């Protein structure tokens, strides 16, 4: 297991380097520069700004300098936000994204999987249909529709939760963003786990277990659930990525100070260092998340372990 993990981590190094190199070039290839504004700066001021941010050096020199700094954990100054470095911006905003993303994923996982199991145990009944219809609508309605509706109902009309992050410092501000982010994921988990459990329940080893006279509850608990969770676990990797990077809309609507906002603004502002910093950070994060998923997978499924 340790050898496998180390091997995977070593194998990730070229991937990360490639990501850095590609984004370094791509972000600079985008038309328009970081100092373009409706109120354009003069050539003299632009020259000073370029010197300040080391943009006047040759591209390969910039890249080597940048890579050297990144290896020391320094993502450099943001071109736009003068008061914080890129590392400070990520360190300041990621915990919020992680809290909201993690909580919504957990919520989605628990509700989604239990709903899916409930449906799978009573296939083609009213319960099943109801759960799956709800799941289907959850997938179909986009977040940018759900979130404002939640705001209207629970913040503006009922006043149960704040409409915006900064309006309070207590936990009530977490509720609406978490729920908005969790709803579509609940649907995915429900559909996945239903299909998977029905599949497992129809397999030979379950029939064998039943033939041996085990109770239905015991079969489900001890024999069916673990293999049924395999697709869920493999979906967790992409789900983590979706929830962590894809929360931009939710962050925007609830004014949540998460990484997503900086990612978008960084791209729009041509804030090269900020965009690069976040891309690298996410690349590493997703590689690690996928590794963890694979490790869990190996633990769940004995067939994979042997190879």
């Amino acid at each position: 297991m340790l050898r496998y993990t180390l091997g995977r981590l070593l194998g990730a190094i070229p991937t990360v380097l490639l990501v850095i190199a590609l984004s370094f070039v791509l972000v600079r290839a985008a038309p328009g520069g970081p100092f373009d504004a409706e109120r354009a700066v003069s050539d003299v001021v632009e020259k000073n700004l370029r010197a300040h941010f080391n943009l006047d050096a040759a591209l390969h020199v910039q890249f080597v300098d940048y890579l050297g700094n990144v290896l020391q954990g320094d993502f450099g100054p943001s071109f736009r936000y003068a008061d914080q470095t890129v590392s400070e911006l990520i360190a300041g905003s990621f915990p919020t994204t992680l809290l909201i993303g993690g909580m919504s994923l957990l919520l989605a996982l628990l509700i989604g999987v239990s709903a899916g199991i409930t449906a799978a145990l009573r296939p083609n009944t009213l319960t099943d249909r109801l759960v799956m219809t709800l799941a289907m609508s959850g997938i179909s309605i986009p977040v940018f529709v759900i979130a404002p509706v939640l705001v209207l109902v629970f913040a503006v009309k009922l006043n149960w939760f704040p409409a915006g992050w900064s309006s309070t410092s207590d936990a009530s501000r977490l509720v609406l963003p978490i729920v908005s982010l969790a709803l579509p994921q609940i649907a995915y988990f429900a559909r996945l786990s239903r299909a998977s459990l029905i599949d497992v329940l129809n397999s030979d080893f379950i029939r064998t277990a039943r033939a041996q006279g085990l109770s239905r509850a015991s079969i489900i608990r001890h024999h069916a659930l673990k293999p049924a969770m395999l697709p869920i676990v493999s979906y967790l990797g992409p789900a983590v990525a979706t929830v962590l990077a894809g929360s931009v809309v939710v962050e925007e609507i609830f004014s949540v100070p998460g990484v997503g906002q900086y990612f978008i603004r960084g791209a729009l502002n041509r804030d090269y260092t900020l965009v690069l910093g976040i891309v690298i950070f996410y690349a590493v994060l997703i590689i690690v998340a996928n590794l963890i998923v694979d490790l869990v997978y190996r633990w769940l499924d004995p067939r994979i372990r042997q190879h």
Partner: protein
Amino acid sequence: MKLNRYFLAAPFALLVLVLALSSCEQRDAAEETPSFLNRALNSDPDSLDPQRARSTQSADVIRDLGEGLLGYAADGELVAASAESWTVSEDGLLYTFTLRDGLRWSNGEPVTAEHFVFALRRLVNPETAAFYAEQISVVVNAAAITAGDMPVESLGAEALDARTLQLRVEQPTPVFLYLLTHPSTFPVNPEVLQQHGDDFTDPENYVSNGAYRLESREIGSVITLTRNKYYWNAANVAIERVRHHVVADEMSEINRYRAGELDMTSTVPTAYFEQAKIDFPDELRVAPTLAVYYYGFNMTQPPFADNPALRQALSMAVDRDQLVNKVTARGELPAYSWVPPGVDNYTPPEFAYSNLTQEERNEMAQSLYRQAGYSESNPLRVELRYNTSDVHRRIATAVTAMWSDVLGVETQLIGEEFRVLLQNIREGEITQVFRSSWTGDYTDAVTFLGIMAPGATWNLTGYDSEEYGELIAQAAAQTDMQARRLYLEEAERVLLRDHSVVPLYFYVSKQLVSPRVLGREDNPLNYHYSQYLSLVDTEE
């Protein structure tokens, strides 16, 4: 089926647990007190460093925190701020400011003239790489210092004693006092800067000289200010604490206002404007601002270079009344001049055709169009570029329809991401007609007219009129305000005659302001210092 019940109950139990745990970090309940003003910024301020800040949102916060030699009253009048009085030499080249007695930083230390000199030198220093480095380029040697040709010590700014500051300008500059209201000219405390370096903007280090001090800052979310008890006018600052909330989404601002979480929004989105009139008739504040929305012609390339008749035809064929009443519809004023109304000591001349009816304009436009060599069988094919946004797209669509109906012009609309558009405009190669806007810095006509001078940084069209440049230069050389005004008005007449730009409308500021906020006055710059506001309790 115990299993299922367990599964369903678990997430809720977990959620409750987390909510309970995280509510332990609750800081204070002061948010409920009536002397807490909640206002919105529509984007995250990039910096609280007066010299490094770029955005208008940063400037809004810095105007609460700091103070320059001069500032603005609630109604937008230019007023003395940290300077108590000043004199200008006979030749208009030497300004001597006397600071108020007993000015203090928020840490209690005295604010001296030396601190202003320090900040101004820092502003023009090439190492600072300040976006607004050229804000005070009229000060002796400022431009040369920014270009790296002279040492910062050579700046024409000198502290004669703790309360006397002398600034030398290179030529008489009637708008100089306005320039000194800009946050980039606000003082910074040299000792704090030296001690904390780049971290001096952190809340635990930040020291300010204005009505408020920085209490806390949640990056990307909210900036909390508390009254600065050392401020010279602290006795007249009514609101104890101010929170500037970052709300990037316009509709979220409205929702938060409706939920009672904001006292002032930063804007009102077009989509909600009609409803706002119904929901909040007494809280919706709309007022003209110093900003013009315009289409520019690329004056360096065909078909618009050397073709004034064509440019005039396109300008005349736009029915601006339709545009502001049917398309933008938030109370904007149709623009028949370049300089908006509301600037001091100036009456904008209007297009010669502005007293004609739209039908008469259309007829004249058609004859100009033919004169320019175009006709139904040989229509003008033109590209109109705008930065992608709903409002810009709708305006471009309407203008395209007008050009097509009146003249038969075939317009291709090209929506581009903002910085792509800016680069295309800057290069001036492929752009033909482009959308842009200009916001004045102060209530003087030159903030609009100056940018169209030949070679000016913000002259986006490539308009290169010697006659115009000469008039602007003449105006700058006048010390007599009446003579200066005549030159400026003449310059605008030339600008309007040449049709390098099509001004479409003048912007308005749109805000929802809670009835519990008193003291907010409309002003053309749309600056609303928190120190002039007060709160009443309207809950009962």
